[in-house]
């Protein structure tokens, strides 16, 4: 017992002093944790009428790049209107969850970017301000928008809860040199596309006719939609019930999966690509002759060293003749929309901001760094110097683009159908045949899963 007193308790006060010291340090550090950092209201709806909180999505090369692009414009807005805008740029992995959190809690920004395919789902939550006639006038009128883009703002027949900000569409990129060397013209029908791809595929040289982001469920569902429409299918009927197993949809999916399975013009390894830049990367390095992508692939291509003179763009072609009921759809209307939170305390300022961002001047300024098409009529396509490319994309948006289904269960549709198509691609990549009944079964399963979304 005496031993313990000596070895572990040299002096009671010494121990106490040490304990007190530790506690003091802890409190000091905790104090630094409490102040500095989120103690401000930069994320909540601002109380004063002179500040707005704006959540922007990542459209540029990095979040910092987005900030650098937007900050001077926001300063311009402040100069014009006296309203200060607190900017937060949120990356895609977090954006939907953050919006969900804001919707649930009622604590959110005043204005925010949303992916336009989320518009109907977000509208159903009732947390966003509908753009009624008065609001539309306040932002410059409905007529200033390209109709195809404006239609994405909400469910058909209702006052939209979002208005378009940046427009994006799919196009068919092709490698000019590879086509010229093989004596090929850019395809105008799907059959020509497959024929060209076959001619340009040489697995021994690790060169393929087409490259795909085969593990990206968003890409897969986009193509399922596009080719489904080309074959006369619709994912949802007029009553909002899923019709994934209709002949048109099944044939559309087959058209896409066959590129890998039957036509064998795609490198099977593509089914591992899911992050976005892998497919454009392969195209830029000449490993594939064609790429079907949204127009913001330009940034990636140039980052990978491909000059805009080295590739051309045409609309993704449809089979010729068109299958019964089919339409010459080359893309869906992709893009980013702007929404206003219903419980914003600065509705007028928010409307002014929306008007500012969708004005032709700002559109011209922002479309370039964000490689987007203007959502306003008569806007110039300036995200690329390649005039032919600009014209091709503008034409797709104007004449060959349809909106994805504007139903509240849209994100469930994307995940379930996208995952189904990914699994079919994987099946083809491992060498197994993908038959019509395989496709139908996979789509049936996706359709049944929609019951989880309450349909």
């Amino acid at each position, binding site marked *: 017992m005496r031993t*313990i007193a000596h070895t572990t*308790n040299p002096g009671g006060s010494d121990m106490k002093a040490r304990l007190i010291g530790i506690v003091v340090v802890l409190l000091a550090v905790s104090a630094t*944790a409490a102040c500095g*950092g989120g103690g401000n209201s930069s994320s909540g709806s601002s109380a004063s009428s002179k500040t707005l909180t704006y959540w922007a999505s990542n459209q540029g090369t990095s*979040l910092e790049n987005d900030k650098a692009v937007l900050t001077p414009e926001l300063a311009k807005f402040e100069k014009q209107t006296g309203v200060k805008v607190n900017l937060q740029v949120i*990356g895609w992995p977090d954006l939907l969850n953050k919006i969900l959190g804001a919707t649930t*809690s009622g604590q959110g920004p005043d204005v925010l970017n949303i992916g336009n395919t989320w518009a109907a789902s977000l509208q159903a939550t009732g947390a966003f301000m509908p753009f009624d006639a008065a609001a539309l006038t306040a932002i410059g009128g409905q007529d200033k928008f390209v109709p195809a883009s404006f239609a994405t703002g909400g469910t058909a027949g209702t006052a939209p809860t979002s208005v378009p900000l940046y427009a994006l569409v799919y196009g068919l990129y092709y490698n000019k040199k590879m086509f010229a060397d093989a004596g090929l013209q850019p395809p105008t029908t799907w059959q020509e596309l497959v024929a060209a791809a076959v001619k340009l595929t040489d697995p021994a040289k690790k060169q393929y006719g087409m490259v795909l982001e085969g593990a990206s469920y968003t890409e897969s569902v986009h193509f399922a939609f596009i080719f489904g429409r080309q074959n006369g299918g619709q994912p949802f009927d007029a009553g909002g019930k899923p019709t994934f197993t209709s002949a048109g949809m099944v044939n559309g999916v087959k058209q896409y999966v066959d590129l890998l399975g039957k036509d064998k013009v795609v490198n099977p390894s593509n089914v591992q690509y899911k992050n976005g830049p892998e497919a454009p990367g392969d195209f830029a390095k000449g490993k594939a002759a064609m790429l079907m992508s949204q127009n913001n692939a330009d940034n990636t291509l140039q980052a*990978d060293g491909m000059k805009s003179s080295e590739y051309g763009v045409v609309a993704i072609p449809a089979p010729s003749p068109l299958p019964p009921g089919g339409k010459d759809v080359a893309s869906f209307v992709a893009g980013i929309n702007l929404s206003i939170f219903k419980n914003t305390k600065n509705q007028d300022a928010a409307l002014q901001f929306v008007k500012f961002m969708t004005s032709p001047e700002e559109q011209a300024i922002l479309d370039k760094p964000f490689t987007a098409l203007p959502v306003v009529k008569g806007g110039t396509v300036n995200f690329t110097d390649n005039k032919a490319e600009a014209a091709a994309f503008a034409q797709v948006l104007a004449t060959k683009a349809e909106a994805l289904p504007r139903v509240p269960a849209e994100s469930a549709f994307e995940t379930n159908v996208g995952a189904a198509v990914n699994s079919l691609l994987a099946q083809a990549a491992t060498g197994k045949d993908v038959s019509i009944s395989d496709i139908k079964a996979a789509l049936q399963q996706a359709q049944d899963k929609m019951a989880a979304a309450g349909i």
Partner: protein
Amino acid sequence: MHEPRSFRVFRVVVVAGLGLFTLVPLYVMVTSALKPLGDVQGDFRWWPTHPTLRPFVDIWSTVPLARYFINSLVVCLVATAFSVLIAIFAAYAVSRYRFRGRRAFIGTVLSTQMFPGILFLLPLFLIFVNIDKQLGFTFLYQTRVGLIVTYLTFSLPFSIWMLASYLDGIPRDLDEAAKVDGCRALGALFRVVLPAARPGVIAVAVYAFMTAWGELLFASQMTNDATKTLAIGLQNYSTQINVYWNQVMAASLVVSVPVVVGFLLLQKYLVAGLTAGAVE
């Protein structure tokens, strides 16, 4: 110590096997951090085409890494300190006292580990927002404090239970001896029992820190630009246009260095034992 040949062979196999298993991905990370962007997007190479330190420079500007790093450090250190302290108290109670409700306490604390995090994410978020509304100012929502409180609670159940187990292994004679010497219960705890349980305390502190360090889900929901932590900040190297893998690797290495150095320093504290002859 009698060391048969079989054990020496076993040791070689284990060290080589686990060493390789651990090292190979680390090698990939290090070489990827030294590669120009083109290399990491294309075919795998054992060695960069031309090694470059550029990624280590770019990481600070592509993403505000310094800010995220500081946020993570502050949040994790404070959460760990409080978590270990509170766990020590609770573990001592569980180990040394047979109080009514002891079983219920352990059971409840344990059951919190069975609920998937994604489901109480939204309710917790709502609670924080409502507390802030009551208080009238932003205390928990999107602040470091909110994250600290959350993280320290996350590591409590395991810390309490593990520490209680370590403490169970320390004979009560130590407590008795200390008490006879005039210590009250808490004094016995800090002066005698804890030093003997030091490896356990350190291990639990490491666990609490690493749990907070790597937490992704709640960090993504509970922070804003100013309070974002490393765990999710790293994801921002992957953007619409490009995924800067080399920078992700470089950033990960950079932020792991202090943690690894901390491990090295803590090595000697992980080694301890009851002082020989402490109990007579």
